[in-house]
């Protein structure tokens, strides 16, 4: 029987040497004349174990990691083919606590299947959601998505079903589905993992959206910083077209739908939906004023559904298992699951999909295992560069849209960046302003000018020039940016700045110069 090995092709694994591991393993397979093949899967999301190599055994998949090319020979010598033990043995993959504790709905297949094998996808419940959708009316599909309670996973948290309903109800000879895969927030990589590890689920979700609202064309707008995701996505699209999942007759139905990948050019602001649309149309990524909503006048002025990768990738399981199944997970108005991305200075960094409701402390201390450096956790930034820094005192905050908002934070795209006690929060506040200044599209004054003035004020604060006055100016400036900016870039930059100032005031008041000794 042919033995199957799995060596991820996920960027995170590649960044840690997976390509060399795969090549070495292939060489050994040939040299030892083994009846074996290597599947290049996505990542299971446990980056401290990458490159993680798995082997299929009668009792299940057995994992080894982190594997270096020089480990391959000894792994094979000690019976890796039968899942034998070795210092790098991790046991059965599914029983690894980090995986066993998760609820994987959106990421059910990620790291398990061959990302570009449609047969694999079907064998693991793929396309069931789309098949069910094809038997429903557009309104029934939209209703199911609404009933599931799914909210935009890009960060805004707007109910996905309501967005779809607006597009469904808007007349237009041409409509679009745009997938926002411009995942620029530091600490986030869920979109990248889905595109690299299970691209068909995004294709399926977008196709369902197209059928639901009457759109025939979809665009995935992603980042030039994600070359591997672009490659896998394009491979998967070609497979889907060839198999008739996409094209003039989706799975043999009357519906036509096709998808194209478009690549950005290094502008963070293009993650903002209207700037993204401008960019897709071939213009500078300048934010549009709303209204009109993209649902009414979106891409090329046509009714457009614009959703994040994870929102769209959560749709197939909702259609397959029903809205009630999905809605049963979560808390309050945050329904379903959320793929937490635990990153930065953390021991067990990776992707952890779970129902809403875990506390920040459980996520950082129990799942993340504290810092990688072993020093105490000082702050966690949640939701990317526009998210707030939370101190340990707020670790009882449950992971929920409203609970974070109530504490002047946001969950954003669910990325968490952990910092140890060596971090200087004044420096982080300065960086937030600097980043906003670099990335501002320039359309509105509070963002364009405010961010530059913000950097200057923080610098004066650092130089201890009239600190009380600077803090007052900074607070006032943040208030202007928050309420006066056109989009979340200028509007949310105050979150990291003000949270740093509020929760870590000691970092903003340099130690008084010691009096000369008598």
């Amino acid at each position, binding site marked *: 029987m042919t033995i199957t090995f799995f060596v991820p092709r996920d960027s995170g694994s590649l960044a840690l040497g997976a390509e060399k591991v795969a090549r070495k393993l292939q060489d050994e397979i040939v040299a030892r004349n083994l009846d074996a093949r290597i599947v290049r899967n996505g990542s299971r999301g446990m980056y401290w174990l990458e490159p993680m190599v798995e082997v299929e055994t009668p009792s299940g998949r057995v994992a080894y990691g982190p594997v270096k090319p020089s480990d391959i020979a000894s792994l094979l010598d000690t019976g890796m083919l039968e899942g034998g033990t070795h210092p790098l043995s991790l046991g059965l993959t599914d029983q690894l606590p980090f995986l066993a504790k998760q609820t994987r709905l959106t990421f059910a297949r990620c790291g398990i299947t061959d990302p570009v094998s449609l047969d694999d996808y079907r064998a693991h419940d793929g396309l069931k959601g789309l098949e069910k959708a094809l038997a429903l009316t557009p309104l029934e599909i939209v209703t199911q998505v609404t009933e599931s309670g799914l909210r935009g996973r890009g960060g805004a948290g707007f109910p996905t079903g309501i967005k779809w309903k607006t597009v469904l109800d808007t007349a237009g000879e041409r409509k679009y589905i745009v997938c926002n895969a411009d995942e620029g927030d530091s600490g986030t990589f869920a979109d990248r993992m889905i595109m690299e590890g299970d691209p068909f689920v995004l294709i399926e979700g977008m196709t369902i959206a197209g059928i639901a609202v009457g759109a025939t064309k979809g665009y995935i707008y992603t980042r030039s910083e994600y070359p591997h995701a672009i490659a896998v996505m394009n491979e998967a699209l070609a497979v889907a077209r060839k198999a008739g999942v996409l094209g003039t007759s989706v799975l043999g139905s009357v519906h036509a739908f096709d998808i194209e990948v478009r690549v950005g050019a290094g502008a963070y602001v293009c993650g903002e939906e209207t700037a993204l649309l401008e960019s897709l149309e071939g213009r500078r990524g300048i934010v549009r004023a709303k209204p009109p909503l993209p649902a009414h006048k979106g891409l090329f002025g046509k009714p457009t559904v614009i959703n994040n990768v994870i929102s769209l990738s959560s749709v197939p399981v909702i259609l397959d298992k029903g809205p009630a199944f999905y809605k049963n997970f979560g808390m309050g108005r945050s329904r379903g699951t959320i793929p937490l991305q635990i990153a930065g200075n953390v021991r067990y*960094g990776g992707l952890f999909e779970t129902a809403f409701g875990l506390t920040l402390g459980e996520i950082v201390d129990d799942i993340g295992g504290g810092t990688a450096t072993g020093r105490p956790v000082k702050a966690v930034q949640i939701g990317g560069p526009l998210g707030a820094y939370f101190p340990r005192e707020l670790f009882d905050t449950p992971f929920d849209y409203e609970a974070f908002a109530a504490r002047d934070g946001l969950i954003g795209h669910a990325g968490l960046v952990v910092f140890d006690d060596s971090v200087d929060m004044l420096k982080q506040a300065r960086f937030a302003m600097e980043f906003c200044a670099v990335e501002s599209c320039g359309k509105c004054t509070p963002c364009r000018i405010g961010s530059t003035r913000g950097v200057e004020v923080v610098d004066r604060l650092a130089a201890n020039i009239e600190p009380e006055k600077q803090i007052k100016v900074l607070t006032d400036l943040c208030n202007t940016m928050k309420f006066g900016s056109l989009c979340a870039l200028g509007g949310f930059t105050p979150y990291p700045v003000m949270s740093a100032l509020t929760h870590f005031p000691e970092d903003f008041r340099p130690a008084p110069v010691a009096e000369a000794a008598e």
Partner: protein
Amino acid sequence: MQSASTDIATRAIGIINQLKDEEGPLLPILHDLQGEFGYVPQEALPLIAQALNISRAEVHGVVTFYHDYRDHPAGRHVLKLCRAEACQSMGGDAMAQKARELLGIDWHGTTSDGAVTLEPVYCLGLCACAPAAMLDGEVIGRLDAEKLEEIATEVRL
């Protein structure tokens, strides 16, 4: 000179014609031009404007808005270092400082031998194996001083 710019124009027109009938073709055209030449040649801008029936100012505006597009060639290698928060939390700033010292250049600079251009990048999605870098499109995680020294030597070979 004349023949070099005619050559650029011919190659640029080929790319423009291939893509101009797509929806929103400007970014794909600019990406392909940069892929072909290593930068977006000034000579191509009026040709794009004409083909897409937009003003040359609009084309210029788009090219200069996006960080990715260059108006002159980069070094033989391009090293991008992530400067975003997750990488900062794992000592990214120190790595950036070291890279600038090793290569003797600042951000966006190219070494005098034309070997390498150093660029900042804000997030490569490798936040759980920070600090991260990208060398000529190849991703690198858990960058440390040793790896950085290897890279600095390798790019100058």
